[in-house]
């Protein structure tokens, strides 16, 4: 072989190899672009279309292209969803006034919804089997019994600038994280403390919510024709401090209440004016109703009462540094308290909340809050204490910390929430680990840990209620 020919051949080979190398890393044109290659361009070399070496195989779901995307099942003219949830919990210490098991239930939640352009209707209900606390008859107000109706509501848009939501519904507003100042809608503290899913912290309202929207300001008004109390701690499941007995109590002294229950006179109105300015959400709130948990006593009957209460407040929320900050305040006007001198009615308060949440690292969030309850007319309160009553401090300070870590493609969530009151010298910890097994199944374990120096502080009174729980859930 002559050197010249050799070099030509070598150059051709090298050139070709170089071209091959370059094309080797180049992606094939995807379907939809291949045909669109400009006609002036030289034809693509064979192999480019078929080359798939750097592509992953198609996941199986892509082969099911014809699968129904819509949630509307075949033959069902509405959306249907739900879950089954089995949950058990136990006290970690003996409680002389309560059962050892704090929780043991199987729950089926079904939700059906039908929507049109300007209206929708939704019903969402829980069906319970509770062998530990079998309450028998259904009480839709407290959620006791085998049926807990969560929502039964219609939503309509009568005019373009307004929405109306009517019926049993869950309503939430305000800026706190598991702390509430201007959100005066019913809470279910019992569910919260025994380890049900956080969604059960909010109890339903039977109400009408009217919202009107304008570029200047938005207005929401929630009218509840018959007072909806919290699902408060009454001793039937969780022990608490009973001031009349001067000790912890439980099933031996279940709280007896006189509940305002006359339709259209024992009513509640909550209103919010809100506006977003740039990235900041501003809101002003008003509430005219009652203390949501027992905050008074009727001396004639000895029963606990829900005295009249008005709340006026405001909030702001928006970005600060690399996180989200919020500030919220409220004036609790305890209308029957007569300058703080009525020992049978809780005093008015100023409440304040400042919070900050940020992402410390990828999938690792932290949140901090400072919360203050400052009693009004404190001197009058001290001058009119009941005999043997443990006086509260003028100011109750609470700090909260939330840590959330997501691992394993966010399927494993480690969560920790802590309330700590340096003034009451008590705390409440909420550790939780949840794992999403697949698209349907999930499991979690967690705890509710209460501790305090004194029996009569807010979290300290629940010291014997400290519990751990576990749950599995299948969602459909």
């Amino acid at each position, binding site marked *: 072989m002559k050197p010249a020919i050799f070099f030509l051949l070598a150059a051709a080979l090298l050139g070709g190899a170089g071209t091959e190398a*370059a094309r080797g890393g180049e992606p094939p044109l*995807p379907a*939809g*672009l291949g045909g*669109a290659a400009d006609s002036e361009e030289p034809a693509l070399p064979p192999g480019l279309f078929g080359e798939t070496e750097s592509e992953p195989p198609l996941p199986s779901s892509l082969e099911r292209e014809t699968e129904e995307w819509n949630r509307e099942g075949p033959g069902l003219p509405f959306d249907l969803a739900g879950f089954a949830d089995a949950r058990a919990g136990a006290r970690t210490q003996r409680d002389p006034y309560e059962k050892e098991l704090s929780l043991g239930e199987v729950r089926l939640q079904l939700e059906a919804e039908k929507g049109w352009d300007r209206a929708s209707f939704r019903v969402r209900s829980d069906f319970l089997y509770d062998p530990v606390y079998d309450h028998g008859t259904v009480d839709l107000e407290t959620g006791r019994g085998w049926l807990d109706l969560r929502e039964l509501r219609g939503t309509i848009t009568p005019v373009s600038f307004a929405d109306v939501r009517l019926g049993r519904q869950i309503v939430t507003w305000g800026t706190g994280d598991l702390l509430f100042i201007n959100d005066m809608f019913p809470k279910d503290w019992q569910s919260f403390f025994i380890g049900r899913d956080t969604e059960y912290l*909010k109890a339903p309202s039977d109400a009408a919510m009217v919202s009107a929207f304008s570029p200047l300001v938005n207005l929401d008004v929630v009218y509840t024709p018959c007072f909806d109390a919290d699902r408060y701690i009454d001793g039937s499941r969780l022990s608490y401090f009973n001031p009349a007995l001067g000790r912890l109590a439980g099933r031996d002294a279940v709280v007896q209440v006189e509940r305002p229950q006359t339709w259209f006179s024992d009513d509640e109105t909550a209103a919010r004016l*809100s506006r977003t300015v740039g990235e900041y959400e501003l809101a002003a709130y008003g509430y005219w109703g009652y203390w949501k948990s027992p905050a008074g006593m009727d001396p004639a009957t000895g029963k606990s009462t829900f005295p009249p209460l008005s709340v006026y407040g405001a909030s702001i929320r928006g970005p600060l540094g690399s996180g989200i900050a919020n500030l919220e305040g409220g004036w609790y006007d305890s209308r029957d308290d007569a300058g703080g001198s009525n020992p049978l009615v809780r005093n008015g308060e100023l409440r304040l909340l400042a919070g900050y949440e940020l992402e410390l690292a*990828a999938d690792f969030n932290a949140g901090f809050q400072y919360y203050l309850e400052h009693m009004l007319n404190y001197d009058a309160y001290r001058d009119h204490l009941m005999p043997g009553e443990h006086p509260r401090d003028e100011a109750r300070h609470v700090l909260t910390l939330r840590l959330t870590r997501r691992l394993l493609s966010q399927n494993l969530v480690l969560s920790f929430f802590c309330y700590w009151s340096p003034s009451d010298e008590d705390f409440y910890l909420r550790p939780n680990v949840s794992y999403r097994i697949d698209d349907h199944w999930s499991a979690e374990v967690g705890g509710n840990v209460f501790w305090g120096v004194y029996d009569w502080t807010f979290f300290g009174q629940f010291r014997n209620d400290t519990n751990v729980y576990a749950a599995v859930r299948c969602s459909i």
Partner: protein
Amino acid sequence: MKRFSATAAVLLLATGLAGAARAQEAPAEKAPTVEEVVAKTNLAAYYQGQDGRAKVSMSIVDGQGRERTREFTILRRDEPGPEGSDQDAYAGNQKFYIYFQRPADVNKMVFLVWKQAAADQDDDRWLYLPALDLVKRIAGSEKRTSFVGSDFFYEDVSGRHTSEDIHELVETTDNYYVLNNVPRDPDSVEFANYKMWIHKASFLPIKIEYYGKGGEKIREYNALGVETIQGHPTVTRASMKDYRTGSTTTMSYRDVVYDIGLPDDIFSERYLRKPPRAQLR
């Protein structure tokens, strides 16, 4: 014009696009500069039309072959630029409304994002939890976090600011502009550089390879299918593989439409509490 972004064209691919049509009108004989390629890619990948809707199905297959799925509908609206600005005025702030249908435990959850085009400003994000009727504001300065547990990062979905990388046009082939991109702040990201194959006619990124600090390939994006919708070449199937975990996420898009006239107030608290059925359908 530091408002551009040029990285994995993912979700927004489906709901965005406007630049490609303009790009094709450019004289073919004149080779574009790397800045032009980056800018046009950003438009093609994230800004098609002035608004849009897509239904997205996501399949996440982990290293052990276990599959998880996500289904959601995404609405997008580009905010008009200031008065008298040029034709790229729409490559600025954007708003996204993401309505989840599956898996069942996130059904009816809504994720709202106001994307801030300024590189030094965090996006605003809200999450609506229907069972609590809770509008939660999300703190998130970390953009290289998994999007809904998939192999796509939040930044893959919302777009990475082009000013954060140094771009180099390393090769021009018959079909592609091949770009190498190096982060200006290497400590802020998990990769050392990434290489993009940008289709010359459509300016769509067809493949993106991310390399780790040791030079190893750590992630790879592939556009698997493209459809031309209302004149906009649109990626309707795409995958992201993470070589470190062996997990691959494939997204496919259905019912993609552009310029449906989404009103701005859709992207507000009102429609978190009351999903806009007419627009989501």
